[in-house]
């Protein structure tokens, strides 16, 4: 299996972080960064990463099944994650999630037909003091209002990338 030179370089850095006989520590970081490039944790990726860290493919599958960010099937190019945990719930997180469901016509962990957008109701993403919070891929949106969520989703549905939706910028630097 071939990866981009950037990902290969990253793999090399990951494998160098841990003691020589503890390559397995690189497994989860490798999987999550590879998933970003490949789109999901495919059978081929499982075998490849297993070979590189020196474990059985089954041991990789065990891990993939455990972590909520690792997906055996691809999520959308833009993965919209709405938190509805306690702090977000108190200030409208659940309404935001329902708004997103209706607008996108998607439910929990569903992907749009063109593969561009997916939706997930997520557990706490550590933005409680700036709730309700939304993450699109790895970017944070704080104190999200229904109007802002509309703008974000309209933009995504119109084919824009999140950074092109300038009315609602991400908060993390």
């Amino acid at each position, binding site marked *: 299996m071939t990866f981009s030179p950037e990902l290969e370089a990253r793999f090399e850095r990951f494998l160098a972080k841990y003691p020589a006989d503890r390559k397995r520590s690189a497994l989860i970081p490798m999987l999550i960064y590879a998933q970003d490039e490949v789109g999901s944790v495919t059978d081929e990726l499982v075998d490849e990463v297993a070979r590189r860290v020196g474990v059985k493919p089954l041991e990789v599958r065990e891990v993939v099944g455990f*972590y909520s960010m690792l997906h055996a099937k691809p999520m959308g190019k833009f993965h919209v994650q709405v938190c509805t945990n*306690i*702090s977000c719930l108190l200030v409208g997180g659940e309404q935001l999630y329902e708004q997103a469901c209706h607008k996108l016509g998607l439910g929990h962990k569903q992907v749009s037909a063109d593969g561009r957008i997916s939706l997930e109701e997520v557990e*706490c993403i550590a933005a*409680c*003091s700036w709730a309700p919070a939304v993450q699109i891929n790895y970017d944070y949106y704080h104190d999200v209002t229904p109007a802002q969520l509309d703008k974000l989703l309209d933009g995504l549905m119109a084919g824009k990338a999140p950074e092109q939706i300038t009315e609602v910028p991400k908060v993390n630097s």
Partner: protein
Amino acid sequence: MLYNQPNPLEVKVLTRRFGLPNSQSIETSLANDGYKAAEKALGMSQEEIINEVKASGLRGRGGAGFPTGMKWSFVPRQSPKPKYIMVNADESEPGTCKDRLLMEYDPHQLIEGVIIAALAVGAEQGYIYIRGEFRYLIEHMDKAIAEAYQRGFLGSNIFGSGKTFNLATHSGAGAYECGEESALLESFEGKRGNPRIRPPFPAVAGAYQSPTVLNNVETFCSVPSIILSGPAYFAGLGSPKNGGTRLFCLSGHINKPGVYELPMGFNLMRMINEVGGGMRGGKKLKAVIPGGSSCPVLKADECDVNMDFDSVAAIKSMLGSGGVVVMDEDTCMVKAALRIMRFYAHESCGWCIPCREGTTWLRKLLQRFHDGMGTRNDIVLIGDLSKNMLGRTFCPLGDAAAMPTISFVEKFRDEFEAHLDGKPCPYEKSSRLVAA
């Protein structure tokens, strides 16, 4: 840009560099006392460092509040195996959002705290386990670590001392359970995040079964101030046996939610009214979760409490991880208990049956209850089920799910009863149906 405005009542120790131009850069850090404590620690013996941390009254900021200096002293002096420092940056406790800021605005303070811990126990390698959702912070920390290597603060001859200390980030991939120390170590080793049976504790057999110091981000970030300004200064900031300040994360129905650094022992009502700007829309306070979703809920009349580990424990709750969730009179307590249980049922790793089955059945019971289909006997059953989980699991997740539930049922029984006999939730026109 800061995510919320500071408050004049704050005592800025860990957050003192927040808001400075380029506060994340090593230049800003160095211009503002950065790495001075690490240099000072290089001139101290291991005992001296540990004794200062003990004398400071610093207690673990991850939730359990275990004395940090004591934890460090459990690491065996002589070890045939290498020793490790592990930073728990898996911040996932609902209500808690402080470690994000500590890494975002002052990553060098964390690196410095880790270096001092390494000197205290004689470790040559450290890792920062960062939850996968914090991708931007992993990049942020990597950049700061690279700056520290360039300056010779990390590497094979730190500060020209001849000592070695290497530090690297490690990405998680989404699992609340991995914030529990032994599950974190399993995850770090590339496995499912199931907890380990203890003892042995990580100080003796942690990463790769080697002696490991494992603390929360905020705990490590407190260490440079202790070494630089002295343990007496740090201890004096807080209340007896609860040294220092703490980053309290205020969320929920208040006017000015935010993360504020306040002295340990700061009164909760003052926190809500004077720091948090009071209740939103002039509503009445109903309840507060004082330290993240794992802590028993407090009724409004219990909230005149000083926020340190011992005072909150005295009223049978916990200071936990500093997540203060404020709920007003319009909040349905059954709904709050249900949402919290949905979380624990989702996050239970499934290793221990009382937790795996207990959280799932409690979720179903609470859902049914909230939908108006509960019976009087269910109230008893919810309490019974929860109590049967207590102390019967490898890790504290089972307790963390059971304790708040017991408190919700005991303290707000009237609200549970108001949902009986097919009545819809009094707080919601139509309750949301989720298939159990």
